[in-house]
């Protein structure tokens, strides 16, 4: 690995990874360490503006996300900030787009930044990447394959990306950019990395379909039915595990899998696991190191049976 690729990146965990998605934070940090990739947490980071702020005042959301980018670039000197949460990743990308294309957003951000007493973030100051980009770019499939200690070859995986990783397309100019780039219609970075770790990837037609997250408080039955459908489709595709890369989707799948049984009597057995947890196991980390015990979906017995935990 060359020096540029090994360059540390700013790490923006966001609020979900301090709460319900803590195992994603734990496994992301553990995988980074195992791969020799340095993460430096953004100092005094704030909410990205998801989801409530954006629905009420999108320009305020743009400002909130811009503050995170301002700290990471202007104060800490980074040129990349990595956000594993799809909501944070999406919002930072959206803010970047707004600040490059909308004069009103720039004006609001300038005014609020001045009031808050920090440098105004300028579009182009830092590149926002996802945890998938981070590992794909810094390590790649070949690099990952050479570091695998326990192949995932006994595990069939359906990769679930959710809706925010690729939509709307115009805020992700680096995607759909030819060979090697991520696709917004058929994302594959998670498929590529987990296949490199030895897993059998099943065809999963609902990989970017709605998880029902937006309905979860106001219309829980709709969320549960959407999740039942996702779980059934994964099982019909032959998957043992659904790999996730979004804490909202992950929590929704886990919680509504339980609710599906209680509310509708629908039982499913597919396990729900963050892709970083799967990579961590493949890199020889323990179940505890990747936080399997923090998931609601109990997969420990499954991974023990497969010799991975």
């Amino acid at each position, binding site marked *: 690995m060359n020096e540029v690729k090994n360059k540390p990146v700013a790490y923006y965990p966001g609020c979900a990874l301090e709460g319900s998605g803590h195992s994603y934070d734990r496994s992301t940090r553990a995988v980074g360490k195992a791969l020799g990739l340095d993460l430096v947490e953004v100092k005094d980071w704030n909410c990205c503006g*998801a*989801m409530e702020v*954006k*629905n*009420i*005042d*999108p*320009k*305020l959301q743009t*400002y909130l996300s811009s503050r995170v980018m301002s700290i990471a670039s202007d104060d800490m000197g980074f040129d990349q900030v990595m956000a594993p949460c799809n*909501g944070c990743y*999406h*919002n930072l990308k*959206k803010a970047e*787009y*707004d600040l490059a*294309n*909308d004069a*009103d*957003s720039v004006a*609001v951000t300038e005014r*609020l930044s001045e*009031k808050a007493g920090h440098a105004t973030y300028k579009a182009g100051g830092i590149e926002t990447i996802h945890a998938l980009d981070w590992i794909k770019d810094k390590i790649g499939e070949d690099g990952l394959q050479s570091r695998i200690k326990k192949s995932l070859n006994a595990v069939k995986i359906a990769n679930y990306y*959710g*809706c*925010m990783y690729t*939509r*709307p397309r*115009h*805020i992700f100019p680096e995607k759909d950019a030819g060979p090697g780039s991520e696709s917004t*219609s*058929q994302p594959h970075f998670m498929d590529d990395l987990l296949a490199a770790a030895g897993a059998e990837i099943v065809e999963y*037609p*609902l*990989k*970017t*379909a*709605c998880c*029902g*997250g*937006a*309905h979860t408080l*106001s*219309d829980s039955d*709709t969320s549960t*039915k*959407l999740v039942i*459908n*996702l779980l*059934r*489709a994964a099982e*019909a*595709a032959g998957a043992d595990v659904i790999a996730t890369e979004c804490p*909202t989707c992950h929590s929704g799948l886990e919680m509504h899998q339980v609710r599906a049984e209680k509310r509708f009597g629908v039982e499913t057995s597919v396990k729900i696991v963050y892709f970083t947890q799967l990579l961590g196991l493949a890199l020889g980390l323990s179940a505890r190191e990747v936080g399997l015990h923090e998931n609601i979906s109990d997969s420990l017995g499954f991974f023990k049976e497969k010799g991975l935990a």
Partner: protein
Amino acid sequence: MRPLDAIEARIEALAASPDAAAAAAELLTLGEEVLEHWICAKDEAPTQAKKEGFRLLALHRQGAKDVPSFNACRETCRELVYHHNLIIMQPGHPETAKRLRMAGLVANHLYLFVRGKLEESQLGEFCCSSKPVRSDAAGDNIGEQRGI
């Protein structure tokens, strides 16, 4: 256009149909009817046009106009077309039954997503639309109105 409950029941019934080709064609029609519900709810007339050879895709495009979050079911529509094509073009394939089951699950996801949005149309705006360049329509700049 059948009522939504009837569409849901029919999607489920078709999953185990012995005539996979007919069932795949009907699932596509059911998908169109689901989208017709959405478009009618917006006081528009559902298009009869086709996009890439399929009315379902033209209806989706119509339904997503001015509602970016409706693109969250774009790939679901395309997957329904894809599975329909697999079944129609390879009728003797050993995985036809599995493909039909998957087509049914994809159609059901489209139904559930649209039904959810019909009930609470503003929900879901956070996750897949973002509306990057907003107009100054009422309510868009609440922060500014409050002087922050």
